[in-house]
C-alpha cells in the first residue's frame, strides 16, 4: 500500500530524533546539515505526492491511508489530501528547509532548536492531512508545544510574555474545538467514530440550532488561529518576539491552519450554519481587513507592522471563503498560499536586516538601500508582492476574492478593496524609512546579502513571480476541491461569475451611442 503521506508526515519527526539522539557527539554544524537534509528529503517526498496527485479528480480525497488506531473509541489513523491540502502540504515542506537554512546563524542550544522545528513540521503536516477529527485535534494541539518553545526559548526580550499569551489564546480556542468534537462523537449511534465521513453524517443529524452552536465552537478555535479581530492581539506580540524561523512559520503556516480548518470543518460539517453565519463572518473579515491595515499604518516595529498586515490579508481569505462563490473560495485558498510565501519572505528579510542592524525600529534605520542594494531590492520586491502588485502573486488571489465577493455583496467587496490603498501606504512608508534617505553612520559598512541568504531568498522570491504570472499552476488543482466545498455549503445557488464563451474582434461605437 501507498504510504507516501505518512512518510511525509513523520520524516521530520525522525529527523528530530536524529538531531536530539545524536548526543554530544553530534556537532552543531552537523546537526544543522542533518536537519536541512531531512527537511529537504521531506520536500522531495511531497513533490512525489504532488506528481501523483490527480488534478482532475473531483470530490474525493486522494492517497488516503486508513488504519485502526484505538478501535475501542473509534480513533483511526486516517490521512488523505485534496486540492486544498495538497498546497498547504507543499507550502509547509517548502518553507521548512528555507527556515532552517535561514536559522543557520543561531548558536544557542542548536540541536534543541532544530528538533523543535522538525517536530513542528510533523505537527503542521499532520493537521493538513488528517482525516480523522481526533487525529486532527492531536496534531492541532501538538503544534503549540514546539512553537511555544521556539518563541519562549529563542525569542526576543519579552519572549516569555509573548509565548504564554500565544499558548493561552490558542489553548482557550481549542478547548471549544475539543468539546464540539466530542459532542458530535457522542451523537453517533452504534459504533462511534472520529472519522471525517462519520462526523459529517453526525453533524448532518443534529438539530439546526445545535449545529449552529457547534459551528461557533469550531469557529472560535480557528478564528484565534487565523486570527480574526478581536482575537488577534496575541499575533503582534508573538511575531515580535519570535526568532526569524518562528515568525516565518507562524505567519506562513500556523495561521493557515485556522483558515484551513474553517474550510475543511466549518463549511463541510455545518453547511446550514455556515450560510446562517456567512454575513456575520463577512463583517468580521472586512473589519479585520481594514482594521489590520489601519493598525499597520502607524507601527514603528517592522515585525509588528508585518503582523498587522497579516491580520488584514487573512481577512481577505476568510471573506473569500465565506462568499461561497467559485472565485471567492478559490481566491481565498490561493491567497493562503500567496500570503504564506510573501509574508514568509518578508519575515526572512526582516530577520536578515535585524541580524545586521540589531534593531527592528524603523526610526533607527534609513538609507539602507545605498549600503545593501540587493537585500533592499529583494525587500521592495516582496513588499510589492504583499501589496498586491499585479504580475506578482498577491494580486490574483486578492482580485479573485474581490470579484467573488462582489457577486454576493458589493459593499463587502468595495470595502475590502480599500485595503489595497492602505497596504501601499504602510508598506511603502515603512520601506522608505528603512531604505531611503541618508545612511546612518553606524550602518555605513553593513554587508549586502551573502551566498547562504541568496539561496534562502531566491526560491521564495522566484515563486512570488511564478505564481503571479501562472496562478493556474495552483488553481487548476484548487478549483475542483473548492467546487466540492461549494456544492456542499451552497448547493442551491452556486455562483460562478464567468461567461462560458469568449468574444473577440472588432467592436464599434455606433451600436450603442445614446442620443
Amino acid at each position, binding site marked *: 500500500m501507498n504510504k507516501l503521506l505518512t512518510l511525509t508526515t513523520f520524516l521530520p519527526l525522525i529527523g528530530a530524533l536524529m538531531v536530539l539522539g545524536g548526543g554530544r557527539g553530534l556537532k552543531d554544524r552537523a546537526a544543522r546539515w542533518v536537519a536541512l537534509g531531512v527537511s529537504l528529503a521531506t520536500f522531495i517526498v511531497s513533490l512525489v505526492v504532488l506528481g501523483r496527485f490527480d488534478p482532475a479528480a473531483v470530490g474525493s480525497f486522494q492517497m488516503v491511508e486508513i488504519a485502526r488506531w484505538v478501535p475501542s473509541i473509534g480513533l483511526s489513523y486516517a490521512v488523505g489530501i485534496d486540492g486544498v491540502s495538497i498546497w498547504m502540504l507543499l507550502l509547509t515542506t517548502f518553507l521548512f528547509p528555507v527556515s532552517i537554512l535561514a536559522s543557520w546563524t543561531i548558536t544557542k542550544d542548536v540541536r534543541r532548536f532544530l528538533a523543535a522545528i522538525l517536530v513542528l513540521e510533523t505537527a503542521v503536516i499532520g493537521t493538513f492531512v488528517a482525516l480523522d477529527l481526533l487525529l486532527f485535534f492531536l496534531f492541532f494541539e501538538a503544534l503549540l508545544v514546539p512553537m511555544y518553545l521556539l518563541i519562549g526559548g529563542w525569542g526576543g526580550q519579552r519572549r516569555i510574555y509573548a509565548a*504564554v499569551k500565544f499558548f493561552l489564546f490558542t489553548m482557550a480556542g481549542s478547548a471549544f474545538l475539543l468539546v464540539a468534537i466530542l459532542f458530535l462523537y457522542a451523537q453517533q449511534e452504534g459504533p462511534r467514530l472520529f472519522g471525517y465521513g462519520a462526523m459529517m453524517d453526525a453533524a448532518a443529524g443534529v438539530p439546526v440550532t445545535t449545529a449552529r452552536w457547534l459551528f461557533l465552537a469550531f469557529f472560535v478555535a480557528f478564528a484565534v488561529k487565523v486570527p480574526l479581530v478581536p482575537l488577534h492581539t496575541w499575533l503582534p506580540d508573538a511575531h515580535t518576539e519570535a526568532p526569524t524561523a518562528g515568525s516565518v512559520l507562524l505567519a506562513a503556516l500556523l495561521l493557515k491552519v485556522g483558515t484551513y480548518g474553517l474550510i475543511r470543518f466549518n463549511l463541510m460539517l455545518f453547511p446550514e450554519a455556515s450560510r446562517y453565519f456567512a454575513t456575520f463572518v463577512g463583517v468580521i473579515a472586512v473589519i479585520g481587513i481594514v482594521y489590520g491595515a489601519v493598525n499597520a499604518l502607524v507601527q514603528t516595529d517592522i515585525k509588528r507592522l508585518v503582523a498587522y498586515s497579516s491580520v488584514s490579508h487573512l481577512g481577505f481569505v476568510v471573506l473569500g471563503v465565506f462568499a461561497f462563490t467559485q472565485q471567492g473560495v478559490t481566491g481565498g485558498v490561493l491567497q493562503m498560499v500567496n500570503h504564506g510565501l510573501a509574508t514568509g519572505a518578508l519575515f526572512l528579510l526582516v530577520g536578515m536586516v535585524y541580524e545586521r542592524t540589531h534593531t527592528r525600529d524603523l526610526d533607527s534605520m534609513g538609507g539602507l538601500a545605498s549600503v545593501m542594494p540587493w537585500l533592499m531590492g529583494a525587500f521592495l520586491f516582496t513588499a510589492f508582492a504583499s501589496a498586491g502588485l499585479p504580475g506578482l502573486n498577491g494580486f490574483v488571489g486578492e482580485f479573485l476574492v474581490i470579484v467573488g465577493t462582489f457577486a454576493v455583496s458589493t459593499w463587502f467587496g468595495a470595502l475590502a478593496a480599500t485595503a489595497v490603498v492602505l497596504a501601499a501606504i504602510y508598506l511603502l512608508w515603512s520601506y522608505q524609512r528603512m531604505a*531611503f534617505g541618508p545612511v546612518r553612520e553606524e550602518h555605513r559598512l553593513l554587508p549586502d546579502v551573502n551566498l547562504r541568504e541568496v539561496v534562502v531568498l531566491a526560491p521564495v522570491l522566484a515563486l512570488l513571480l511564478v505564481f503571479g504570472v501562472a496562478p493556474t499552476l495552483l488553481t487548476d488543482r484548487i478549483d475542483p476541491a473548492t*467546487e466540492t466545498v461549494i456544492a456542499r455549503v451552497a448547493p442551491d445557488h452556486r455562483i460562478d461569475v464567468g461567461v462560458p464563451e469568449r468574444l473577440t474582434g472588432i467592436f464599434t*461605437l*455606433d451600436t450603442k451611442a445614446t442620443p
Partner: protein
Amino acid sequence: MMLGPSLPEASSLSPLWLVPAVPLLGAVINLFSGRRLGRSAGWIASTSVGAAFVLSLWLVIALLERSAESRVHIQHLFDWISVGRFAVGADLRLDVLSATMILVVTGVGLLIHVYAIGYMEGDRRYGRFFAYLNLFVFFMLLLVLADNYLLLYVGWEGVGLCSYLLIGFWFEKTENASAARKAFVTTRIGDTLMLIGLALIVAGFGSLDFGAVLGAPGDTIAKGTATAISLLLFAGAIGKSAQVPLHVWLPDAMAGPTPVSALIHAATMVTAGVYLVVRSAPLFELSGVALTVVLIVGLVTALFAATCALAQDDIKRVLAYSTVSQLGFMFMAAGMRFYTGAMFMLVAHAFYKALMFLGAGSVMHGMHEETDLQRMGGLIRRMPITGWTFVVGAFALAGVFPLAGFFAKDQILEIANHTGRTWIYLLGTLGALLSALYIGRLVFLAFFGSPRSEAAEHAHESPLVMTVPLLALAAGAILAGPLLSTSAEGTLARVLEPVTGPVPHGEGLPTLALSGIATAIALGALALAWWVYASGRVEWLTLRERLQPLPRAAGSGWYVDRAYSTVFVNPGAAAARFTANVFDTKVVDGLVNGVGTGTRRLAAVGRLLQTGFVRSYALAFLLGAVGVLVWVGTRL
C-alpha cells in the same frame, strides 16, 4: 453587436509579442549586470527600445495594409487566470488605437533613452536607471496592447511601480523618496476605485475581455451600472493622468531625473488615462452622464493647472503643471466624444512636451542642475540648439500655426463651438490663452533677456547625444500637425474611426474664423509674455509683489496640498495612531485578556509557566489526552 468576422491568424502580425518582450529583456539584462556593463548599459537599453520601435513600425504598416474592417490582430499568449468559468488570458490586441500608442511609446521612448545616455553619465546607478526605464517601456506597452482590462491593469500598476522607482531614483534625499511614495499612493487611490470598476465589469459582463465588454449589446447592463463602471474607470484615469482632485503628485514627481519627467510624466504614462477613456468609449457612451463628468473634470483641470503653471519659478514645475493642464484638454475632447481629437492631442503633446522637458534637462545640464527661472536668462546665445528647439516646443504648445499644438487645441475648441457648448468654448479659449502666457513666460525668462546669474553666463550647450533627440522631437512637433490633422478628412481621424467612431459635427462659427481667433490669442499672449518678461520695460518681480497674495497662492498650487494634509492626512494618521496605540493595545487586548482569565491571573499563570511548568507540557498534554480517552471509554 458589431463583432468582426473571425480573423485568420495572420503571420505578418504574429511577432506582436516581441514588442513588449524586447524592452523586458533589456530590463532584465541591465538589472542583473548593469554594473558590469558600464556605459554600454545605456546603449543596450536604447537598442532594445529601438528594436521595439522598428518592429512596431513594421507591424503598423502591415496592419494598415489591411482593409479598415479587419485592422485588428489578437494574440493569445497563455491562460493567465482560469477559475470556474471566469477566465483572463494574457492576450494582446493590435488595432489602430493601440498601434497609435505603441508608436508614440517606442518612438518618443527611443529618443529619450538616447538622450539619457548623455544625461545620466557618471551616475553611480547608471545600469539600474536604464533597467527601470526599459521596464517602464515594457509595462507601458503591455498597458496599451492588452486585450482585457486585467492585463491593462497589470501594465497600469507596472508603470506606476516604475514611476515610483524613478521618481525616487536619487533616494538619498528624503524629499525625493517622499515624492515617489506620494505619487504611488495618490495614483493608487484612483487605481483602487478602478479595480472596483473591474469587479463591477465582471459582475455585469462575466468577462474582462475588450471584445466581450465593449462589443456587448447595449442592453447587457443597466445605464446606471454603465455610469458606475465608467466613473470608476475614470477615477483610475484621474489618478494616473493627474487630474483634479488627484493631480497633487505630478508636480512633486519632478524630483526624478529629467528624462523620467519627459518619458513618464509627460509623454506616455500620464496619457494612459486618456487612452483608457478612449478605449472604453462604448461604456462611457452608454452612460452619457460619465462623459459629462469627463468633460467637466478636464475643463476644470485645464484651467486650474494653467493658473498654477503661470506662477512657478522652477522650470520643471512649470512644465509639470502644463502637463496637467494639457491632459485636461485631452479629457475635454474625450468628454465631447471627440476621441480622435483626444488621441491627436496625445500624440502631438508627446512630441512637444518631451521636447521641452529634455530641453529643460539640457538647460540644467549646462547650468549645474539649476532649475530656477529667476537665475536664467539669455540662454539662447549660450545653448542655441536647446534654445531654438525649446522655442519650437513652446510655440507648438501655445498653438502657433502650423505647429502640432495649433491643430490639436484648435480642433477641440472648434468641436466645443460646433456642438453648441458655448461656455466650454469660451473657458477652453481662456485656457488656451493662459497656456500661451505661461509657456511664453518660461521661454522669455529662460532663454531671452540678459543672464541673471553666474551660471547663466557660463552655460554651455549639451553634447550631441542629447541635442540630436531634441532636433528629432522638434521635427515631430513641427510635422505632426499637418501630417496627422484630425479634421474630419484628416489622416488620424480616418484611421482611428473604426475604433473611435466618427468625429462629431454641427453648426457654429466658421472654421476659419475660429482658427483666426485662436491664432490671435496665441500670438497676443506670447507678445504680452515677451513684453512683461523679456523686453526689459517691465519690472516683473515688482509687478508680482503688487499682485500678492495671488501669485503666492497659485505658486503653491492653491494650497491644495496643505488642505489635504489638514483634512485627510493628519486626522487619518491621528485616528490610526489612536486605533493602534490605545484602542488595540488597551481596549481590545485588555478586553480579550480579561474575558479569559483576568489579566492578573494571566500574569500569575505566566509566572507559573516561566518556572518550568510548560517545559513538561508535553507530558501534561499526554496525560490530558489519556484522560479524554478514558472519559470517552467509560461512555462506551
